């Protein structure tokens, strides 16, 4: 009767695993406690079914296993029993569905008074936009997208001039205020997922999707992409900082508006007109380099390229060296030869021609050579 014992162990083991599991929902940080309640209710009902049905199976196996000279009963049907089971199951299902739909009804109807935040998902980073003083978002279209206008705002739309742009991966939100999140992408599908908020939605290029929640805890929460978006999908990180409203407004006031950003872009900066640099940037994206190497100073899976050139790096073997042209080429061709301290030796070798290597190095050079590194927001 090994199978009966195995089934008992599976039931007991599953229940025990549930009780001692250190893996459970992240602490709730929004007002979507109703979703957690639904999870618990569903777990309770289905868990009950799981235990009862399996133990019934065990009991059946113990009682009716084959014995010599024993014959099975002939009972091909029992309408009353079947009808009872159908009704019972239907009631159980309705008990799950009805409260579930009530919660969902709340999900599809955001409150009238909300802060509106736009999230821009991009292979493989996050940016954010607020409507600014006029509380109206400027018109956007992919045809306006350039390196200096990643949001694709229409420069001629006056509503867009005061839009507040947050190009980094980190955004702030006020505690206790309902937030309506508008989701937009100019490239592929993404999903804005912050586990402690529970609420979330896919991002679909060509349309604007949305969801809403109210942050109920202060803190710094990780943003993940939860819809496969290419080779850098797993590394599309961001942060939402929830803070008291006053701090949020100070933070928001310190952000650049679109008009200011466009002015800054016109005055030069990293956007080199060198075609080699442009080619390098395209390569870095096509080869997926930017999935691990940020260009804004934030450390990813690999070191950031911002300010990398000319920097003195410390390596896992204890040595240190200044990053120069030759060293950079060697690092790209033989990524495991020396690994920067604090990073895992995970960089794959890439098939790059010498011309491609030149372009990449020129791009990294351009990122490191101009101006002071941007202040990283922590």
């Amino acid at each position: 009767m090994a199978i009966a014992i195995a089934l008992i162990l599976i039931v007991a083991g599953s229940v025990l695993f549930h009780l001692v599991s250190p893996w459970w929902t992240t602490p709730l940080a929004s007002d979507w406690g109703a979703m957690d309640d639904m999870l618990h209710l569903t777990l309770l009902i289905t868990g009950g079914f799981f235990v009862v049905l399996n133990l019934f199976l065990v009991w059946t196996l113990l009682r009716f296993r084959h014995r010599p000279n024993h014959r099975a009963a002939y009972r091909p049907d029992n309408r009353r029993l079947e009808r009872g089971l159908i009704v019972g199951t239907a009631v159980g299902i309705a008990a799950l569905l009805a409260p579930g739909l009530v919660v969902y009804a709340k999900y599809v109807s955001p409150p009238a008074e909300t802060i509106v935040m736009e999230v821009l998902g991009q292979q493989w980073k996050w940016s954010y936009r607020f409507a600014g003083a006029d509380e109206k978002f400027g018109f956007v279209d992919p045809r306006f997208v350039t390196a200096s206008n990643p949001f694709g705002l229409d420069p001629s739309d006056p509503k867009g001039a005061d839009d507040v742009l947050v190009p980094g991966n980190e955004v702030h939100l006020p505690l206790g205020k309902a937030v309506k999140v508008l989701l937009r992408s100019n490239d592929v599908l993404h999903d804005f997922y912050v586990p402690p908020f529970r609420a979330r939605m896919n991002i679909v290029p060509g349309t604007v999707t949305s969801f809403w929640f109210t942050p109920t805890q202060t803190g710094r929460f990780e943003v993940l992409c939860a819809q496969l978006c290419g080779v850098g999908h797993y590394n599309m990180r961001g942060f939402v900082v929830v803070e008291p409203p006053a701090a949020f407004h100070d933070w928001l006031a310190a952000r650049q508006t679109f008009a200011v950003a466009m002015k800054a872009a016109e005055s030069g900066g990293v956007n080199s007109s060198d075609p080699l640099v442009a080619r390098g940037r395209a390569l870095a994206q096509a080869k997926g380099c930017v999935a691990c190497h940020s260009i804004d100073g934030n450390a990813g899976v690999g070191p950031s390229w911002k300010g990398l050139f000319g920097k003195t790096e410390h390596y896992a073997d204890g040595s240190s060296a200044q990053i120069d042209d030759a060293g950079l080429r060697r690092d790209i061709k033989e990524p495991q030869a020396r690994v920067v301290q604090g990073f895992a030796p995970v960089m794959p070798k890439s098939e790059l021609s010498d011309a491609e290597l030149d372009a990449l190095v020129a791009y990294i050079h351009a990122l490191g050579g101009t101006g002071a590194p941007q202040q990283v927001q922590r």
Partner: protein
Amino acid sequence: MSTPVDKILPADAAVDHGHAPQSFLTRYVWSQDHKVIAVQYSCIAIFTGLVGLVLSDLMRLQLGFPGRFAFIDAAHYYQFVTMHGMIMVIYLLTALFLGGFGNYLIPLMVGARDMAFPYLNMLSVWVFLVAVIVLMASFFAPGGPTGGGWTLYPPQVITSGTPGFEWGIILMLVSLLIFIVATTMGGLNYVTTVLQLRCEGMTLMRMPLSVWGIFVATILALLAFPALFVSGVMLLLDKTLGSSFFMPAMISMGQATNYKGGSPLLFQHLFWFFGHPEVYIIALPAFGVVSDLISVHARKSIFGYRMMVWAILAIGVLSVVVWAHHMFVSGMNLYFGFFFATTTLIIAVPTAIKVYNWLLTLWRGDIHLSVPMLFALAFICTFINGGLTGLFLGNVSVDVPLSGTYFVVAHFHMVMAVSPILVVFGGIYHWYPLVTGRLLDDRIGKLHFWITFIGTYAIYFPMHYLGILGMPRRYYAYEGYQFIPASAQSLNTFITIVALIVGVGQLLFIANLIWSYFHGERADSNPWRAASLEWQTGHTPPVHLNWGAKLPVVHRWAYAYSVPGAPQDFIAQNAPPQAGGDEPEQGALRKEHAR
């Protein structure tokens, strides 16, 4: 070449259809015999499945030991994930259940000499082989196979930034289109055979549930695969000719594209309009087969046969109106959520009935713990588990936080990977003697069973908890995410080790198949003492055209087990009418009810 008329007319005479085997080539290669074609289908599917198995262990290596295996970089990881998914769902399970089990069992179980269109049937398997070859070719194409996920969501699956966007995706789509051609040729055959070639006395309500499951699954396949076909063609046009069915105006890797006006959501609707019935294309044959395994090995008539048939039909009908539960957070109109959550949870009722009836079949049975029965029991356990977690994901407000996490991975593997494959194993252990004339080795079979059952449960049960934690699926690595505790990595390592053991354990099964073919114990013509027709040909394996000079005549249902007063504990479907064991009639039931 024969025509369908040939098959329908000669009810009593074993006429030569022009496809009687004459040489090795016509007997085993260009064979039109459904039994040979079934074995060909199964061998191709199992071989492809082994590739899928290796891919799953490779991706588990990365998840269990991140970065330890340098050759598994992010691009390779996504390619492994994608190919594993597509291979297992389409090229293993669909092909094996319909092309393998369907081909072998339908004509034998309904008392036909062969499929309605034997030549088409032969074409089907060879076209299937072409589909597999094209699919495998993508491993050797420049850029490798596609890494866009088995759901092939545009835009990313055809734009740079996704591995295999150059050739891999084209080969994948072409292979799918070819596969659908093969499935359609097979499917038309199965449906026609069930409807037209049943022997005398084999009413629809006397057919074994295996046939019912495969029959309804095939109808679903004929209705659902066209949705995949058109979406595949449209995606192929978007990729190669630059049309914009699914492609909105967009930027790809900083470069403007010429696409505009297309809808990525349209693809998702088409994909899941195929994709959800696809789940039942796999599940319904498994439901049918496992019903038969339980009934035969518990020596008891299936409980509530009529209800079982109606449940299969109800699930089949409902399965085409639940597709958007895969898209609750896709960005589609939010109000769809109400409708699709409701239809999805309604489908739980007929599904639950099936579980109850399997349990009630076992109740007061004479349960023989043979290897097929062990697999059937394991199926009940994993299917209860996977079915119940479906109530989490089908209920839209519970799905919102769980969507796209490991909870989903755990759920669908438990319900449509582990459960059907356990039935596949049970079915192969059960019918191998019919196919080869020899029994599979019992000890190797039991070892294989324990490794597979306990192993897969240990892999997928804990995975639900990683999903509840919020760990997203399709991640190459999780380092640096603070909300994921270090212990989650230990759990992942544990899962990988178990997955490797289960993977290697499958070699036992392959070894058993080969070893027993030559050295297995010889089986008599009905080793499990089953009542259904496939065991009543008098031969194992059945000869060409299955039946001797006369087709069988059926006098009762397939579940006349342990009938009171009968000399044996089963009465064959084609035993003379006076042997008794009729199926329960409406009237008799009413009388019993009144008592």
